[in-house]
């Protein structure tokens, strides 16, 4: 019934370790062997077992406190004896009391939970043997056990239901649709990224991208042969050139804007919009709507396929 706990989650969990230590004290469970196999190879679990063993050791050393003198006699004298037409509640108290006083559990009735687990075949061998022995001698527990066995038998013969005809075909068709949708989106993403689609494409792209690298390497190799050129001097020269180019570009753009009258028109539009709160609000709303539409279009077109990534292991 039980399967290998250690192989499922990797390491032994606290329940498994406690079961293992219980097994060392004689309470053998079905998982014990697999846990032992894992423990033989796992130092982390060995350390945790040692920590639990200390806890068990401490608990095992707790001492029992004796009740005061003649306590048992005083209590027993206050209740009726078995065979004296006990009420069921008093009979149960008597059994529990005897169990507590004598330390023997064999006479106590089995709990509903224990009986259910026995009927369900979920008790360890040792507990099942104890339960079987008790049930054989106790008519009350035997009849309660029969009740649980009847319930479990009723549950286990309940029919399974079939989905409507054609369910499998519908699932396969829908799955193909989803797969095509996912593949289509992946293709769209790849197209947007301008990635090559064939081995020849990859070779061509590799060649093209390696050409500037090769050219740069050739220039660097040539420059290294000229002793007058230093790295610092070359960097300073390149920085001056880049700064001049950026400055020239900025001036050209500014001049073009001013000459076209676009700056004046933009200023006039802003002046008109803020002249009345209504136009300002309408402009803000239009701009917001435009922004959300853009975000939505981006999300729909270049977002990752949702089904392929969503809650796969949930």
């Amino acid at each position, binding site marked *: *019934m*039980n*399967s290998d*706990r250690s*192989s*499922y989650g990797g390491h032994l969990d606290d*329940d498994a370790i406690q079961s293992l230590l219980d097994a060392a004290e004689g309470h053998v469970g079905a*998982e014990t062997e697999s846990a032992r196999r894992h423990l033989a190879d796992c130092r982390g679990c060995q350390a945790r077992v040692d920590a639990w063993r200390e806890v068990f050791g401490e608990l095992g050393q707790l001492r029992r406190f004796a009740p005061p003198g003649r306590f048992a006699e005083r209590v027993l004298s206050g209740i009726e004896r078995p065979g004296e037409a006990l009420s069921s509640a008093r009979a149960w108290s008597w059994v529990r009391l005897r169990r507590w006083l004598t330390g023997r559990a064999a006479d106590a009735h089995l709990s*509903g*939970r224990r009986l*259910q*687990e026995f009927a*369900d075949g*979920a008790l360890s061998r040792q507990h099942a043997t104890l339960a079987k022995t008790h049930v054989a001698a106790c008519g009350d527990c035997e009849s309660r056990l029969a*009740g*649980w066995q009847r*319930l*479990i038998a*009723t*549950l*286990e013969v*309940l029919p*399974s*239901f*079939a*989905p*409507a005809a054609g*369910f*499998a075909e*519908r*699932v*396969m068709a*829908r*799955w193909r649709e*989803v*797969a095509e949708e*996912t593949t289509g989106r992946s293709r769209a993403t790849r197209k947007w990224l301008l990635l090559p689609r064939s081995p020849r494409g990859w070779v061509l792209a590799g060649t093209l991208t390696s050409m500037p690298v090769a050219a740069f390497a050739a220039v660097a190799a040539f420059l290294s042969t000229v002793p007058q050129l230093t790295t610092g001097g070359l960097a300073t020269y390149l920085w001056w050139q880049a700064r001049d180019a950026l400055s020239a570009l900025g001036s050209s753009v500014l001049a073009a804007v001013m000459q076209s009258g676009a700056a004046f028109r933009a200023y006039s539009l802003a002046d008109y919009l803020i002249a009345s709160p209504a136009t300002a609000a309408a402009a803000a709303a239009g701009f917001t709507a435009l922004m959300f539409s853009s975000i939505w279009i981006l999300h729909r077109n270049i977002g990752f396929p949702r*089904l*392929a990534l*969503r*809650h*796969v*292991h*949930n």
Partner: protein
Amino acid sequence: MSLNYQSVEDAELVTLAAEGRESAYRELLSRYERPVFSLIYRMVRNRTVAEDLAQEAFIRTFNAIDTYNPQYKFSSWIFKIANNLTIDHLRKRRVPTVSMHGAPDAVTPEAQARTSLVVQSHGESPEEYVQNRELAGQIEAAIGELREEYRVVVLLRHIEGHTYDEIARILDIPLGTVKTYLHRARAELKLRLAEA
């Protein structure tokens, strides 16, 4: 030589499916369509919804087939996906509980009358009639009245035959909780059947 998929074990079928063999997917579907549908149907108690959820469970499972870990049983994996989908559905559908005798803060008879619910009987369609008959037995009715957490453990244990450990894995709950849920669920069932 063609492969007889019916004799192949689940883990191997998953490997074949991951290689793109459609017959392997079909075989997995054929093995699990009834168990998965039955579990979901008994949870949601509506055939149409159960079919939609079962279909979604299979599609999610098949889409993630590359990520299947063969250390786990395939059945545990697919039931986990199916159960999570079902629980999500039930949570979304759940409405706040309102007493039929009026709102809790309704003190006067007028307030109680104003806030009380009137249950109306709607005519059943032939389809609903058949569905309701399927789940109308005493034991099915008793299962339907259990809390969702209790219902699912009973179904996984006694109808699908999973071990306590497997149920704990499927539901992501401790083993002790599985035992407690089962104990309480069976006790409630016994009580309800005795009352019936």
